[in-house]
């Protein structure tokens, strides 16, 4: 199981991240200041660290340096708009950043991307009779390859990552297509219909009235 250390001095945010990562199937531990984080990194091995920059005792950059020395990938959390923090964090070797306030889907996507980059996730994801090879981006059903467009593939990954989670149309649009969701247009619905048909997921991806879709497992 993948172990993630969450370093965040704001208790509310720390618990929020933990709750959602646990639901997504990760194992999580919390550290509320820089020293505690460094101690935990020294004691145990983690697959990923989510790190706030403004921390008491030791600041985020110092913890980042320490984490890099033991080769653990780091995603740092920063208040939005603080470009200098972002640049400095990325320069110092952080894998990615998440700007506060963030959406849960974004958090999960970024965590998964970094883990995949470090080949810590399963390369093969299974969902009923469907197999997804995230390395080669190939999808097979019953051993036969299914031809998916890029958007359909990303849509599938989004559902797989957010099992049992209601995905709002705006969330789906923003993470697959990017940009602001206007509320009009049936792009999301059309793609979901196509995906359901191609993979025989009619039973499992359910529409939620006025909200969006959920992959039920």
């Amino acid at each position, binding site marked *: 199981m993948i172990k993630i250390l969450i370093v965040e*001095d*704001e*208790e*509310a945010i720390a618990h*929020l991240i933990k709750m959602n990562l646990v639901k997504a199937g990760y194992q999580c531990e919390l550290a509320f200041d820089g020293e505690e984080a460094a101690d935990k990194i020294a004691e145990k091995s983690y697959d990923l660290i989510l790190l706030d920059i403004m921390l008491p005792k030791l600041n985020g950059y110092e913890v980042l340096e320490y984490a890099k020395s033991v080769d653990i990938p780091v995603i740092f959390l920063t*208040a939005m708009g603080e470009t200098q923090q972002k640049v400095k964090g990325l320069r110092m070797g952080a894998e990615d950043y998440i700007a506060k306030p*963030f*959406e849960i889907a974004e958090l999960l996507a970024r965590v998964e991307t970094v883990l995949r980059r470090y080949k810590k996730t399963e390369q093969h994801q299974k969902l009923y009779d469907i197999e997804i090879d995230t390395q080669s981006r190939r999808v097979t059903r019953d051993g036969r390859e299914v031809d998916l467009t890029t958007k359909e593939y990303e849509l599938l990954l989004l559902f797989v990552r957010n099992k049992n989670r209601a995905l709002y149309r705006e969330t789906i649009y923003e993470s697959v297509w990017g940009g602001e969701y206007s509320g009009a247009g049936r792009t999301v619905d059309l793609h979901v219909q196509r995906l359901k048909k191609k993979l025989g997921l009619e039973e499992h991806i359910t529409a939620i009235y006025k909200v969006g879709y959920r992959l039920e497992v």
Partner: protein
Amino acid sequence: MKLSWKLFFLTTPIFILFLTLTGSWVIQESFQRSLQQEIRRCMAENQLFQNSYELTRYNLSKEQLSKVSVGWLVESFHRNDGQSGSNTRVYDESGSILYQDTGVQVPNNIREQLTVENNTGYELVQWHEKTYLVVMSVTSFSQYIETTADISDLFESRSEMYARYQTGMLFVCMVAGCLILIVIFAVMKNVQKLSAAVRSFAGGQYGVRAEVNSRDEIGALAADFNWMADAMSVQMGKLQSEVERQEEFTSAFAHELKTPLTSIIGYADTLRQMELSREETDMCANYIYHQGKRLQSLSYKLLELMMVGRQDFLQKEISAQEFLQEIGDTVAPALKEKGIILDIQAQKGVIYGDQDLLSTVFINFLDNARKASQSGQHIRLNGYVNGSGYIITVEDEGRGIPEESLNRITEAFYMADKSRARKEGGAGLGLALCRKILEVHKALWKIESEQDKGTRITVCLRNSQMERKERRERRRKDVG
């Protein structure tokens, strides 16, 4: 055209013109003098000849006179004075030559001008490329005596002087021109220095000053520029630090805003997306509620902070004793709940200010003291008259403030212990608000603290007397 060249082309021709005029005048004057002298000399010579001739003639009788020629006469008086003429000619009335001892005969018109009263005349005559001075006088027996002198040398020497003067002047002008140029460029160098300094200043190098040490107007201009640059630097420094403070405040504010927002949005997002257990739902709702409260307190405090800066608040005399008692009554319930004992000792006195704002300050101080204290500890609120002011101290026996935080504690959003401040619902704005209120009251105050021993805040408020005195002093200063 550059100013230096303008100056050069303006001064040099004037210089040359004056030099030429003066030189020509001097040469002409000296020439005229020599000429006059020569004329006088020739006239005298002519006169001498005439006198001798007439004298010799008078000494002879008529018969003797008819026997001798003019030539013999001339030779006889020449013999007497031991001289011999070489430039004299004698004519009779009709103009035929009676005697001559010179080969040079220069045509002239003097004869027509001669009268009985004015019996001598002269004329300058150009003849065969030479200049002659011819003097003619008429004798009493109507004979004309003409003496001729070659004065070409005089004219030649004048031309020579002119030529020499021109060469000299050319040289002088060149030297003078160079000197003028050097002086102009020396002056202009300072102007260029000043101009370079101004340009780099405008280009953003605000440390640059003009290094001109001369005492002339340009030096004064440079000094003025430096003075202006200094004044501007000071002003810019002030603006810079103001901007920095503003930026710090904004970024701290953004951070304070984003933290509760992140929680609220995140938990709400979780709630709407997932099917959660009863406890999980409660937890989410609880966090949303508390973070929402935090945002509320932050916005209220911020609003208050902004109002203090703008408001035209009402300053009036307040009875210090009543004021402190009132504050004590306000905070008493909260203190009692935590088991903290409040001692109030207040001397009679008057303070001057806005009662509501000042209440905010001391309630904030007491609230901080309460947060730092434990059950059974004392908080002392003392007030006493000191000179023309009134001093109020708030003292607790609580955990104290760490030394490194002490001078940052009044900054907006600064929290010495963030997690504890959060739990107690602080936004990090309380002391910033107090500082602002005390600032507008022109009160002096300080915070002393020792960890685990307690904190003491001392505020010196002015009473109305001080206020009046100060106003009087200011007026006196304005008049003076």
